[in-house]
């Protein structure tokens, strides 16, 4: 943990070739594409315009944009959901161990129930 980082060499390089192939193809497409010249931004504060666009006040923005008010609200809801989900996934149950996905065919539950008479309370996260 206190050694310097080393290049990862114990990786599956063969799979990585697919990524290289993807880059080759995409690069070829982009380099041989002929796009017109970029039309840059007119004078005006980009950040302020982004702010106006975010709240749907498009006509007050210096640079043209679309209104994103509804998306803003939805993203807000999404962030709340993500927070709640993350906390729920991470928490431990008080009395019977952790909330886990069952991947052992219920053996842990069976053992827990068998040993419920012996132990008054069980420790969570038994390994």
């Amino acid at each position, binding site marked *: 943990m206190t050694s310097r980082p080393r290049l990862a060499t114990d*990786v599956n390089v063969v799979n990585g070739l697919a*990524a290289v192939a993807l880059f080759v193809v995409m690069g070829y497409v982009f380099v041989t594409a002929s796009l017109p010249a970029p039309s840059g931004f007119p004078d005006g504060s980009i950040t302020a315009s*982004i702010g106006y666009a975010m709240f749907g006040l498009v006509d007050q923005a210096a640079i043209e944009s679309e209104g*994103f008010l509804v998306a803003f609200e939805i993203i807000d809801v999404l*962030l709340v959901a993500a927070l709640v989900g993350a906390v729920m*996934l991470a928490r431990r149950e008080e009395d019977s161990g952790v*909330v886990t996905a069952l991947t052992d065919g219920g053996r842990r539950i069976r053992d827990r129930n068998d040993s419920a008479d012996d132990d008054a309370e069980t420790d969570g996260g038994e390994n």
Partner: protein
Amino acid sequence: MAIVTEYYLLLSAAVFCIGVYGILTRSNALIFLMSVELMLNAANINLVAFSFHHGNLTGQVFSLFTMAIAAAEVAVGIGIILVLYRNFQDVDVTKAATMRW
């Protein structure tokens, strides 16, 4: 002199493919999540490049939303890695291979 849009696209392709490389080759779940972040940011570069190309701010606002979603996704992803660790005692994605034929 403005940089030609193709080079921005090339940059975003490179970053994206680095992210794909990371997903395909690394076995640590946290590195996996970092690669996913790389891919999302490559998409962001793409969006901003086209926003400059068209002179319309939609791309930049959209990339802000993308970043928010990426953050939410990482939060949930770390929660999942936590549960993965509890079940398999390791964050190696190649070890968690019970849902197979």
